[in-house]
């Protein structure tokens, strides 16, 4: 008994690391599909996109780099899948030079899955430096800010832009970011032009952005792996209803891993405390 208590209060690091590694890796390979509860900010973004008539255009801004990929990339994919499955036209841009490739990769991948036509159903305009000027410029004229798309094709020749000129023709901007981009979108596109903004942000940044939800400056927000998982869950349900092949549950798996990791840490701490109190009692006795 003494021995056991001692062992529990003095688990060595390697044991803890091993347990945690298994707890994180196994759910990635074999998804557990822990029950998902969709939180209101996620639901609101989903509902907003759901409410748009077919053929509307939305703008997805890839404002993240590979450093925060695990959290933001699945959000980007999930929103893309939702929009494209609903025949909403997607304009992809990128305001973080490290995200150019990620944006292209994601948009091409989902377009291929859902058999979408470049130039008609979606476009990718690539990267623009100078955040503020770009965000403001889009309120005046997309054609001036992005004369050509990512491939160098003049956007005047793309059917999608025949009736998309500025924010008036873009129903929503979603900024995926691990930094301050969503706040800038609010300051420039929302405050000046009344454009609807939503955000997909990392868990760390989310705390800073909750006020934007309360004031209604964000239509909705996906926060961290959890927000991404919830959106994936909604999109998965939609795909099932539409009889489409369901996409791989990237963030859902990740959220399983996080849940298990949290529970393992909590259990370890509790075990450590039980041992600690029993030891203390023995010493006292």
């Amino acid at each position, binding site marked *: 008994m003494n021995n056991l208590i001692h062992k529990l209060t003095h688990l060595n690091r390697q044991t803890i690391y091993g347990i945690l590694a298994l707890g994180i890796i196994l759910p990635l390979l074999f998804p557990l599909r822990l029950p998902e509860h969709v939180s209101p900010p996620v639901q609101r973004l989903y509902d907003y996109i759901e409410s748009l008539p077919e053929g509307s255009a939305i703008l997805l801004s890839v404002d993240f780099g590979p450093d925060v990929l695990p959290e933001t990339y699945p959000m980007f994919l999930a929103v893309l899948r939702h929009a494209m499955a609903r025949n909403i036209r997607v304009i992809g841009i990128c305001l973080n030079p490290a995200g150019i490739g990620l944006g292209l990769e994601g948009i091409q991948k989902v377009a291929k899955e859902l058999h979408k036509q470049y130039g008609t159903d979606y476009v990718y305009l690539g990267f623009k430096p100078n955040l503020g000027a770009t965000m403001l410029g889009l309120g*005046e004229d997309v054609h001036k800010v992005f004369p050509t798309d990512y491939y160098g094709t003049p956007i005047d020749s793309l059917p999608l832009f025949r009736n998309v*000129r*500025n924010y*008036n023709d873009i129903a929503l901007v979603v900024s995926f970011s691990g930094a301050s981009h969503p706040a800038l979108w609010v300051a420039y596109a929302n405050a*000046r*032009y*009344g454009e609807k903004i939503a955000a997909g942000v990392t868990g760390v940044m989310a705390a800073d952005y909750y006020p934007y939800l309360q004031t209604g400056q964000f239509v909705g927000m996906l926060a961290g792996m959890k927000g991404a998982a919830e959106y994936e869950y909604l999109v998965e349900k939609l795909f099932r209803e539409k009889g489409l092949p369901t996409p791989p549950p990237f963030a859902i798996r990740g959220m399983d891993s996080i849940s298990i990791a949290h529970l393992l840490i909590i259990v370890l701490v509790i075990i450590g405390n039980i041992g600690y109190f029993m030891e203390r009692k023995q010493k006292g006795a």
Partner: protein
Amino acid sequence: MGWVSLSLLWLAVAAPPDSLPADTLAPRPPRVLEAARFHLQDTPNDAGHSVTLRWTYPPGLQDSVRAVIVLRAEAPDVPMQEVKFIPGAPTVYKDMGIPSRTPFYYRVLFLTVTGDTIQSAVLGPVEAYPQWFHTGRIPILLGVVLYVGLLLWFIVQARGGKELFLRKIPGLEAVDEAIGRATEMGRPILYVPGLSTIDDIATIASLNILSHVTRKAAEYETPIIVPNRNPVVYTVSREIVKEAYTSVGRPDLFDPDQVFYVTDSQFGYAAAVSGIMMRDRPATNFLIGMFWAESLILAETGAATGAIQIAGTDAVTQLPFFIVACDYTLIGEELYAASAYLSREPLLMATLKGQDWMKFILGTALVLGSLLGLFGITWVHHFFAGG
């Protein structure tokens, strides 16, 4: 719908409308808002490249305005250029990026939901010019003057030899003991002066503690290892360690190889310091200064080697990790109190008194401002917001 018609409209109004017969252009003559509604002035507190235009609407008009166009010209009688199109019904526009000390004329057009255009009279001239004093920063100036005054007052007092009380700061009490422990165990001391640059005040605070720690370590002839992430901090910490050895009469103990630069890469540095902790097995680790996410990598590796660890940082986001993984943690302002605490130098201690008084004053302002605020009096809020 869009503002596609905008350019047409602009063509129609770009020529000064009052010089044209009204019925040739528009079915109804444009209404003109009197100049008294407009206030045009140089934008205050800037480098002189901007003017600010403010206006008020006649009763009821604001609700029917859907957009505003601001026009500008260098003379009152030449065609004006559109400088800004603003959707909604704003009441202010700041025209930026214009040359200093050049007269400009403005005209504002209001587009209403009914398709009418209402225009202002020609406004101006106005010149943008630079200012020598930023009146918006007066609150900060007052704060700085008050605070520096307090600090100086207590410094002067201390010159008169007044004894000051200092409360115990456990993390600093433990410094000497921690150095002693390394000496007993015959193992080195590791000192990480944070990962920031020299103009980060936390780094300076850390280097002050390094000076003290090195002197103590020199007395005991215990080696101290100081790896650096920033090149400038490396040069300064090298000087500090060298000077500290000299000041206790042991310049012979200074080994230039004990203070070194590792790399600017945050995690490269963390990897290397983790390696040092595992291989050189320092008995005491000081992690003091500015840290980012690597804080827990350093603190946890140190804890794994069984070293006694004293941490200190003003990085609010990293404090939780130091609190959890280190034996002692200097929290925020305690880091800045360290130099005075360790040296017991009266002039340095005096400023702590000044810091406390300022805290008291700010706390009082917070209480009074809040009481006033609850009753709707918010000038205290504006004072702090002016900062």
